[in-house]
């Protein structure tokens, strides 16, 4: 009692003594002058003096001590300094009275438990009440004035590992179980628990009530966690969680320090840690004296936070002084650096270090990436040395800051903004280089630029020169715009360069033709289309030498633009076999004439072509693409593949290409970039990819008479036996491509409609609608 007032923080030093055997548990006497150590082969009381431990009493007496002396736990009575209780491994609960005159101090023996008793606990204020928890799943409450237990509590689950009376609630105690549960009991109601919750996965080895905070319970488990629960609410709420490196054997709140608790581990880790539960990642203090796991920890005095006692399997008993503890914080590296999943970078450092670039300016070196600062507010109640640190997170500056941050922004952006076709090669490259640069990907950007240089005319700045040519070649071309369009188309088929672009060109030309649009635009467009090939090796060269190969894939190919342009094409097998055979001959026929005009241009180009052999750079480029693909940037590989088109296609084997395409397309679809993905599919040259567009597209047709779906054939209705789609021009059934005006919904054979609308603006059905064929 006298010590209550004089809590002198310096009343000792770190000291230890050797025990004869490993300790299982320790407990301190009320007046903090003596400690009892119990284990399988030891049961002794030591006095703690200024200089060291002094053995006071050996309770383990007798010639051949029985298993009752083999203690799993020990507890000193909170007020009677002569009274001790132990839990024996054979299932006995024993009380010891030090005032007994004989050598054997054993007083009472309860052998009611069938299995090992793991824990005993005196009631904090009721002098005669003792609680025990055993492996057999029962908890028993003993009245020390009687010979047997007064009540038995059945956990209805597995073994009890720990029992603790609440410090504040007179009737409440907590029990922790091997199956991970924690139960709360009212001592007056042995029939069932008040509350149960699962605290850990695997056994909960220990629990401890907070000495001051009513309803705070700390639990430690085999899952290497210490959790602090708030039991005042209806549902036990986890308010803190400390992750340790080994299973937690004991946990004890530190006196006078609201947030601190001490833990020791069951296996492997020999240290004793004191944690601040609010800083769960680094121990507040560590005691590293033991050479084997500590099995018991106890604060020497309930009001002195500076002295900790511990017993260990290495057969030593230690008194740890807080001033001698090691503080991991001091040794911890105060800087942390970590990459996020999506390329973000987080950097934490002491505030003093970060002060230099205050004002939230971009951190040097992280140009275009703006750090976000987080400052941890110093908490006055905390005792950590450096509590103030700053965390900066560097993120990619997403396009103008209005896009979603982090993640694969660059990918989405790039996919959206890249131009794969529709412009001359050099411009495409330049554009893409620019895009890449804006998105902070200098390497990719440079690659694009290099591609342009490699495959462009080395002598000439590409654009102006070509512009001239296009003008030169323009005159003859203008004569037969129409023919030219099909020529382009044809070339397209063979060349497979920039399909979409050609498509547009074709569209535009047709439009021009009909609406008499501005010549200038058509001219310009044409120039561009031209330029496309200018940058490459000579056009005819390719055409002539490799003709047979180009022709091969025709069947798969025309389909796409045929829809706009040509009446029909070989259709995918999914469609009806009866489809009409309009295609083929016409296209092939039309390609012959324009060829002449084409060669004309090419000849004019040939005038200046002091260039390297066409395949000169191919191996390098191929290697580069492969490199990108392997880096995971399949986007670059595919984009370059498309833009380069014929120039590189042969160099990369089909399978690899297909693989790249597939990967890229899948990525695009993941990001819901359907348009881009479609474009890529369309532009790809692998038959396996292009056919993706033809798969799983279904057209449902309803009969125009009875409005019922037509299942069987596209042109005759099963129900009303009428032909559904009749051509408005020839009045025959359309078995194939049916084109109709979206205004008046009349239509017919594609070529009929086109022919008709060349001459007339009105609907062929005579409905009076002004149809337009584009």
């Amino acid at each position: 009692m006298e010590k209550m007032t004089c809590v002198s923080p310096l009343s000792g030093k770190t000291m230890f003594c050797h025990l004869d055997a490993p300790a299982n548990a320790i407990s301190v006497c009320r007046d903090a002058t003596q400690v009892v150590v119990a284990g399988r082969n030891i049961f002794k009381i030591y006095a703690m003096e200024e200089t060291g431990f002094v053995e006071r009493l050996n309770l383990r007496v007798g010639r051949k001590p029985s298993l009752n002396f083999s203690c799993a736990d020990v507890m000193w009575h909170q007020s009677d300094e002569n009274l001790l209780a132990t839990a024996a491994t054979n299932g006995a609960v024993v009380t010891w009275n030090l005032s007994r005159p004989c050598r054997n101090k054993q007083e009472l023996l309860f052998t009611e438990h069938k299995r090992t008793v793991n824990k005993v606990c005196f009631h904090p204020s009721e002098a005669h009440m003792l609680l025990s928890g055993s492996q057999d799943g029962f908890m028993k409450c003993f009245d020390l004035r009687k010979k047997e237990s007064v009540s038995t509590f059945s956990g209805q689950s597995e073994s009890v590992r720990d029992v603790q009376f609440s410090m504040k609630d007179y009737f409440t105690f907590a029990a922790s179980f091997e199956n991970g549960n924690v139960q709360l009991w009212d001592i007056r109601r042995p029939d069932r628990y008040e509350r149960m919750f699962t605290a850990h996965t695997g056994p909960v080895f220990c629990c401890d009530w907070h000495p001051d905070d009513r309803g705070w319970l700390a639990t430690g488990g085999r899952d290497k966690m210490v959790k602090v629960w708030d039991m005042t609410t209806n549902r036990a709420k986890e308010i803190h969680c400390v992750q340790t490196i080994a299973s937690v054997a004991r946990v004890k709140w530190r006196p006078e320090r609201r947030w601190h608790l001490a833990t020791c581990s069951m296996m492997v880790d020999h240290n004793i840690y004191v944690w601040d539960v609010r800083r769960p990642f680094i121990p507040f203090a560590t005691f590293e004296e033991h050479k084997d796991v500590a099995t018991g920890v106890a604060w020497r005095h309930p009001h002195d936070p500076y002295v900790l006692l511990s017993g260990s399997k290495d057969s030593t008993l230690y008194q740890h002084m807080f001033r001698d503890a090691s503080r991991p914080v001091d040794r911890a590296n105060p800087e942390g650096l970590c990459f996020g999943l999506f390329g973000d970078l987080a950097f934490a450092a002491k505030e003093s270090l970060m002060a230099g670039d205050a004002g939230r300016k971009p951190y040097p070196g992280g140009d275009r990436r703006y750090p976000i600062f987080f400052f941890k507010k110093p908490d006055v109640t905390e005792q950590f040395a450096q509590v103030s640190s700053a965390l900066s997170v560097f993120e990619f500056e997403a396009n103008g800051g209005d896009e979603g941050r982090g993640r694969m922004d660059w990918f989405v952006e790039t996919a959206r903004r890249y131009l794969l076709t529709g412009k001359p090669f050099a411009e495409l490259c330049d554009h893409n280089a620019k895009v890449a640069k804006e998105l902070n990907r200098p390497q990719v950007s440079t690659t694009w630029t290099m591609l342009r240089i490699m495959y462009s005319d080395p002598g000439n700045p590409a654009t102006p020169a070509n512009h001239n040519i296009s003008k030169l070649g323009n005159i003859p071309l203008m004569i037969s715009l129409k023919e030219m369009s099909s020529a382009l188309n044809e070339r397209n088929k063979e060349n497979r360069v920039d399909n979409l672009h050609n498509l547009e060109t074709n569209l535009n030309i047709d439009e021009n033709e009909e609406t008499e649009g501005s010549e200038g635009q058509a001219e310009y467009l044409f120039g561009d289309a031209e330029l496309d090939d200018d940058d490459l090796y000579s056009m005819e060269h390719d055409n002539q030498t490799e003709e047979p190969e180009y022709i091969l894939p025709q069947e798969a190919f025309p389909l796409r633009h045929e829809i706009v342009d040509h009446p029909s094409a070989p259709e995918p097998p999914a469609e009806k076999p009866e489809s009409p055979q309009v295609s083929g001959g016409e296209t092939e026929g039309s390609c012959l004439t324009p060829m002449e005009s084409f060669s004309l241009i090419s000849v004019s180009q040939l005038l200046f072509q002091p260039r390297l052999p066409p395949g000169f750079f191919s191996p390098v480029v191929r290697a580069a693409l492969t490199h990108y693909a392997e880096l995971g940037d399949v986007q670059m590989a595919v984009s370059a593949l498309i833009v380069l088109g014929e120039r590189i296609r042969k160099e990369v084997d089909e399978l690899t290409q297909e693989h790249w395409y597939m990967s890229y397309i899948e990525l695009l679809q993941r990001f819901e970039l359907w348009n881009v993905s479609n474009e890529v599919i369309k532009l790809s040259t692998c038959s396996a990819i292009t056919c993706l567009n033809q798969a799983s597209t279904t057209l449902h047709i309803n009969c125009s008479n009875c409005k019922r779906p037509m299942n069987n054939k596209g042109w005759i209705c099963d129900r009303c036996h009428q032909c559904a789609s009749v051509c408005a021009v020839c009045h025959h059934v359309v078995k194939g491509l049916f084109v109709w005006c979206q205004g008046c919904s009349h239509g017919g054979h594609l070529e009929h409609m086109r022919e008709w609308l060349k001459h007339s603006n009105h609907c062929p059905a005579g409905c009076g609608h002004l149809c337009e064929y584009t």
Partner: protein
Amino acid sequence: MDVRGAATWEALASRDASSRDAAMASLHQEVMRRVESVGPMPETPSGPSATSAPGVADDLSDILARVLMLSKRCPYDDVREKCVWLLRSIQDIGVRIPRPLGNGPSKFIPEKEILKVSKVDARTIFEEAFSLGRLDNISLVMGFHPQYLESFLRTQHYLLQMDGPLSLHYRHYIGIMAAARHQCSYLVNLHVNDFLQVGGDPKWLNGLEGAPQKLRSLGELNKILAHRPWLLTKAHMESLLKAEEHSWSLAELIHAVVLLTHYHSMASFTFGCGISPDIHAEGGHTFRPPSLSSYCVCDIANGNGAVDELLADQQVLEVSGEVEVLMERMKQLQECRDEEEASQEEMATRFEREKSESMLVTTAEYEECVPSRDVSRHFEDPSYGYQDFSRRGEHVPTFRVQDYSWEDHGFSLVNRLYPDVGQLLDEKFQIAYNLTYNTMATHQGVDTSMLRRAIWNYIHCMFGIRYDDYDYGEINELLDRNFKVYIKTMVCSPEKITKRMYESFWRQFQHSEKVHVNLLLMEARMQAELLYALRAITRYMT
């Protein structure tokens, strides 16, 4: 054929009926193609090798053996039927087809009883196991206890196939080493195949001296662990872990220890339940037509003859009181426990007595049993066997569970060094220990926990592991001598188990209950070995 074949077998195990169909069709073609190329087999019993293309013929018989296996074991009805049909159709052409040797997965348990289970309770687990590539006889027998089987298969799959410190062929080789220690040719053959399949060097199979130094150094640990685990000290671990060229890392060692103990106990189970070779494996089938003589041998050896059954019936009549007596004793123990409290000395002596008595339970009925050369080459020092704990003179301190238990210590160590395995093993131990249907023979609603605990603790007792809180007198009450002989033989020298021993204990109990006991024995043994090994490692670490 190998590549194609593997894919086909895999597809046959798929859950998708149509792909099974397709695989079956291609298998059919394959077989027919081979049958044609081999031509009709000569009638002479010299077998397929006499034909012009012996390689093809061997291939064919391999395939046929597998087809036979599928026709019996495949969990899918369609595959079974088609396999039967396939066999029959080629038999009609004149090709000799194989026929299974022995009666079902176990020599001790009638086939129909096992298959009955596999059609109902364990079906989904079997399908899963089958699609993972194998449904061996061990799993079939364990199918009596689906709950356990699931955990067992998950653990075994994790140990052998999933991420771990040891490479795949090392794992199988360690399995071979461990099983060979008990001369368990079933497990050895199983893993020799697997070992070769994952690309193991066939030279290693010539014997331990053909294996790398690293594995050879494990031989000593294997030996001690299998027979006298209490002799393990931290020095053994030190010699394996000390930093030099062929040393083990801690994680590898844990993995190896888990594998060793797993296969030691598996060997116990294999012998304890009389597992017969898988149908498609060597010795599981024969191409020879059934002859009169082989019938006789078969029936006599397996006790399925009518005469034997008659005898058994009589025996059952004689001992019909057995179960009731056992239950009565359990009840008595439960009741009188509180009254008559044995003194501490008494308790200690009871443990000692049980320990020493377990020595007297002789297993020397078949002393002349010599390991076949084939299997014994996988280990050294064949003379080293189980020796009774605490034999004359050499005193080994008793292992106290309260000081080093699986739940508190072993688990943490294993899980730390080989993540997730601790969890898996923990579950497996718990399921095995807590498994009960509250039945005993024909009696329902019986609390068997006392009996299970007695069995578990008796095994640990034989390994010198003591529970402070257990009264070893109970063992004497509950386990009769025949049963003790069986336990002792199965745990300590499983290769000596005979059908007679299997039958002589607990005669009224059902086969599923005997398998249950076997599971208990197996897990208890594994835990005992693990505890010693892990304690040694812990001591090394501190």
